């Protein structure tokens, strides 16, 4: 209870403190103050997180009531908290050197800590309106991070697109809340669930939620902000956006739809439908990309597709296996895509940013990078092969669990979807393989030969994620302590 309170309050309060300390430090000729304070704040948050997780494993969901607002740390919230805190800490460490040349980095760390705090809170919301409020706060803190390079017109363009599309999405969510409030007189998720007789009204509200939260979860065709935002943000933030923020949007969508549980079968079909579209659109759009970060951004679309198929199968058939597969893919995608963005970002830093240039890293720039940067070439290759679903790596395991769950339903429609998803996984290798080919089989480009050495603070988070991606491929049960309770929480919310 106390640990749960501090899990949310500590990073929320730390964020302005990080800014002030960093600001003071840069005046005192000590520019490292901001980054150290940010890292310490995130590391300190692990203490209440571990205590809260421990209490959760003994006595189940924790609740915290502040005035009229009630927060609940259930399995789903714990999963999101673990993902955002884990990736956030690694990104803070990674960015120490990556962002070192930028002025006002204390703002960067303050916003990063705030983003992590808000995502922990988002998972715990028990009220529809409270969910929207966390969601909006997450959006605002990520706008500023996307447009962090504010002298670059491309970053500003990405920031403006992201802001306008997210704001429209939030208008739709609010309209959905209006509909639910008018029909039920409450915004509490479990109270709404108790009045699930109003089918046509809830259908309309659910459609509004899918459009609204779908913007942040990057459902095609509401995805057009994503490739710009992910490719123009600083690489650490690309990893956070792709690895956690779109997943947080998906969890918000699931929470809202689970409240309208009378329609669970329809939501399942819709999620599967969006999953199929996302898979195909993401893969086809990624095929013609030559910029590495843009390619990875488009591949996020197809990975959201896998999550949606897994979750949709679970919601449609009311079985735990599909939901577990979808949530497990959420975790592994966070690690794989985080690793891919951080590795690509390390090469981008070594080749361009270190020299004050903001060019885009193309696949041709990677030519022969294994000669100059053997470790980065290996980790980037591991990341993209895991994303493509090659067997001994984490991505294969999570896709396999989703396909297996689909096959177990013995429903011809779902089996066809699963076969389609499997074929798409093979198709995705068509754009991942050229990256590995360029890294290992091409002659080094001039840019690579002129690149500088990589500092150890960039290497540590990348190696940690590489270890995780390889380990999870062999022992997927390592995360069952997170995935199991999360799928139970979701199934219980759906009334299964």
């Amino acid at each position: 209870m106390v640990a749960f309170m501090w899990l949310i309050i500590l990073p929320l309060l730390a964020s302005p403190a990080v800014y002030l300390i960093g600001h003071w430090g840069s005046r005192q000729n000590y520019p490292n103050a901001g980054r150290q304070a940010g890292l310490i704040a995130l590391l300190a948050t692990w203490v209440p997180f571990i205590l809260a997780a421990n209490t959760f494993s003994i006595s189940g969901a924790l609740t915290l009531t502040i005035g009229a607002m009630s927060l609940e740390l259930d399995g789903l919230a714990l999963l999101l908290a673990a993902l955002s805190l884990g990736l956030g800490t690694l990104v803070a460490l990674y960015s120490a050197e990556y962002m070192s040349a930028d002025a006002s980095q204390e703002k960067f760390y303050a916003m990063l800590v705030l983003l992590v705090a808000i995502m922990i809170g988002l998972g715990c919301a028990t009220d529809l309106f409270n969910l929207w409020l966390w969601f909006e706060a997450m959006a605002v803190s990520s706008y500023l991070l996307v447009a962090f390079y504010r002298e670059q017109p491309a970053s500003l363009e990405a920031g403006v697109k992201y802001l306008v599309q997210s704001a429209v999405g939030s208008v739709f969510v609010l309209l959905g809340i209006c509909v639910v409030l008018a029909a039920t007189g409450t915004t509490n998720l479990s109270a709404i669930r108790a009045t699930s007789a109003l089918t046509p009204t809830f259908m309309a509200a659910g459609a509004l939620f899918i459009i609204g939260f779908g913007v942040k979860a990057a459902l095609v065709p509401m995805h057009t902000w994503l490739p710009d935002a992910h490719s123009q943000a600083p690489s650490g933030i690309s990893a956070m956006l792709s690895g956690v923020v779109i997943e947080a949007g998906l969890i918000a969508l699931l929470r809202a739809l689970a409240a309208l549980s009378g329609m669970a079968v329809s939501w399942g079909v819709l999620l599967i439908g969006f999953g199929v579209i996302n898979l195909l659109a993401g893969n086809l759009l990624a095929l013609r990309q030559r910029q590495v970060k843009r390619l990875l951004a488009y591949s996020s679309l197809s990975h959201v597709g896998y999550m949606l198929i897994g979750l949709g199968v679970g919601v449609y058939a009311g079985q735990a296996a599909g939901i577990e597969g979808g949530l497990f893919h959420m975790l592994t995608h966070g690690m794989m895509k985080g690793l891919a963005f951080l590795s690509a970002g390390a090469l981008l830093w070594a080749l361009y940013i270190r020299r004050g240039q903001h060019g885009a890293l193309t696949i041709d720039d990677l030519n022969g990078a294994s000669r100059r940067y053997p470790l980065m070439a290996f980790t980037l290759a591991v990341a993209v092969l895991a994303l493509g679903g090659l067997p001994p790596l984490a991505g294969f395991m999570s896709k396999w669990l989703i396909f297996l769950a689909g096959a177990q339903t013995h429903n011809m429609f779902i089996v066809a979807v699963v076969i389609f998803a499997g074929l798409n996984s093979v198709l995705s290798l068509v754009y991942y393989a050229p990256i590995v080919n360029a890294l290992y089989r091409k002659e080094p480009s001039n840019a690579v030969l002129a690149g500088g050495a990589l500092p150890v603070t960039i290497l540590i988070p990348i190696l940690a994620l590489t270890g995780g991606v390889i380990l999870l491929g062999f022992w997927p049960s390592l995360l069952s302590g997170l995935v199991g309770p999360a799928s139970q929480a979701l199934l219980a919310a759906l009334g299964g």
Partner: protein
Amino acid sequence: MTDTALQIIVIGVLGLVGVGLYGLLAVRNLIKVIVALQIAVKGVLLGLVAAGMASGQPNLGESLAVTVIVADTIVAVVGLALAVQVRRHVGTLDIKALSSLQR
């Protein structure tokens, strides 16, 4: 609240949101884009208050509306801050001039 009053309010909500969304599609000036967003949100505010009234929870609807005003102002401030940076570094507020990124 009578049904006629509710119907008028619903038309008002849809009208404001519609004007806002149309504005987003039609205008090219970044400041006007943010104004259009604000109009759409104002429609939603009316909707929240009406929804609270219609379901017999006027306090809830109004408190939600006040919270939305605060949250939405922050979004507008960030949007205008971005507009300032766009004017400074791109030299124009025309969003067509801003689209340099490839598809």
